[in-house]
């Protein structure tokens, strides 16, 4: 009985997490005639929908925008957060707790509350429907997240090793580069992955602050996708696009599973 439970538990978890993904994949492989057949698996799998998606400018430009905007927001956040987290972990100054509290408070901010004013301001200063117009609001959630995760990671670094290396004759720069950087790099990398996930996931800013392929991101484009032609249902094409943007997520999770779990739990990141 106990052995059954020991196997059944993990199997149930995997089934529960993967069924919706398999369903999307199966839907994306269904041809136009089979889309309404009410079955889980495709009767005659076809890659037609993937061809449609990659021929659709709205999707390809959204993919470009999403990757570019998310990467810029991630890099900016991680750089600023690394400086702050270093100070929080290593220096003794009265603002430490304040920094973490501010980061936490802002992480819990309802993003939709910023949309109205930003919509108004961006339209008057010409940032509406541009990359910076999304990168800037993205910082409101990516930066607190990076600070939170990085300061948790940096706390665990044995900083004395830097001095030890200097005692052994290393220059400060050598000590930093050869000792601290290798110790800090995994944490920085993990923070970058989590931050990227959050930026990549944004929908609220994506639909509110863009109007065309110039800056519209993938989640927003998916929601407004109407199909290759007026007469074709967009369902299967949306499913194909959804699968395409999920592949990188699955790849990253597969490659860095342990680090992501460590980053999530040590920093008690929001979901």
């Amino acid at each position, binding site marked *: 009985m106990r052995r059954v439970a020991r196997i059944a538990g993990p199997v149930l978890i995997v089934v529960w997490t*993967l069924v919706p993904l398999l369903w999307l994949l199966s839907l994306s492989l269904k041809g136009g005639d089979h889309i309404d057949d009410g079955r889980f698996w495709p009767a005659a799998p076809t890659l037609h929908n993937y061809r449609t998606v990659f021929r659709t400018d709205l999707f390809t430009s959204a993919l470009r925008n999403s990757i570019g905007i998310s990467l810029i927001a991630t890099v900016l956040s991680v750089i600023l957060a690394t400086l702050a987290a270093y100070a929080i972990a290593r220096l003794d100054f009265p603002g430490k707790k304040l920094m973490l509290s501010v980061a936490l408070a802002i992480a819990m*901010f309802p993003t939709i509350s910023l*949309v109205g004013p930003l919509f108004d301001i961006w339209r008057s200063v010409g940032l509406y429907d541009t990359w910076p117009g999304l990168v800037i609001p993205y910082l409101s959630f990516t930066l607190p997240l990076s600070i939170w995760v990085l300061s948790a990671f940096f706390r665990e670094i044995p900083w004395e090793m830097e001095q030890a290396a200097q005692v052994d004759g290393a220059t*400060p720069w050598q000590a930093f580069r050869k000792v601290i950087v290798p110790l800090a790099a995994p944490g920085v990398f993990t923070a970058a992955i989590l931050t990227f996930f959050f930026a990549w996931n944004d929908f609220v800013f994506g639909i509110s602050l863009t109007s065309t392929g110039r800056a519209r991101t993938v989640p927003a484009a998916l*929601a407004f996708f109407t199909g290759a032609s007026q007469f074709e249902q967009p369902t299967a094409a949306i499913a194909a696009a959804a699968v395409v943007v999920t592949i990188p997520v699955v790849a990253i999770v597969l490659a860095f599973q342990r680090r*992501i779990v460590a980053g999530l*739990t040590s920093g*008690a990141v929001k979901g």
Partner: protein
Amino acid sequence: MTAAAVGAPARAERRLGWMLCGPALAVMVGVTAYPLAEAVWLSLYSYRITDPAGRRFVGLRNYGVILTDHLWWSDVATTVLITVVTVAVELVIGFAFASVMHRIVFGRRLVRTAVLVPYGIITVVAAFAWRYAFALDTGFVDHVFGLGHLAWFGQRTPALFVIILAEIWKTTPFISLLLLAGLAQVPGELLEAAEVDGATRVQRLFRVTLPNMKAAIMVALLFRTLDAYRIFDTVFVTTNGAAGTETVSFLAYRQTITRTALGLGSAVSVLLFVSVVLIAVVFVKGFGVDLARARGER
């Protein structure tokens, strides 16, 4: 950097600390406090983007309009319902997941990877998967479970069921990983001692395990409650707010962006912000959630 390390005046260390934190703090405050202040200011006006000339100061009238409107309260009720059910169910499922992952021997890596996928996937993508699964035309649920032609999105209860299911699927992994970390901190000796003393499994769970992971549970609860209360993406994709599934975030979006009624919309946004702050205060003051202590900060 080195000056601080060799014990130079604390003032230098303090200055360096602020220099390093300054840019991040300035950016965080700049991108949130400024728009929020603007929202408060806008909320005092009657202002539609399509009619800038008609903009006029109305004081607190927008708030009066909202708070006496039936729609606001029904949206609040919907949001609270979604939040409470989602968080309660995923706390239970999340704990079950965490227990399985805590004891797992084979396939540890596979299970953790599987659990992380819903966490990492785009919310909109997940919402589409659930919407298409339940849809009358493309769905398989009615067919596979022999439900005939049940229109899930046509009525409030079934529509909310799908929305809540989608949210639970997407966010349970986060809770389960936090609880897994909490489980790892329950002292093994305590559990053994309880077993030696003849405590049943249920007693050990409620008397030893759960009290010892209270901090992790409260953190998970706080984060997820605040997050669930802001629900927007899933509602947008599945029902677009129809069939009585509109939430507070969706109302704010509809007023500001769809109707371009910036004054009224901003007032909704400010009220949403205030309710999120209230929830956080209740957790921190009422339940004594100490986030700094929960993550081992001195």
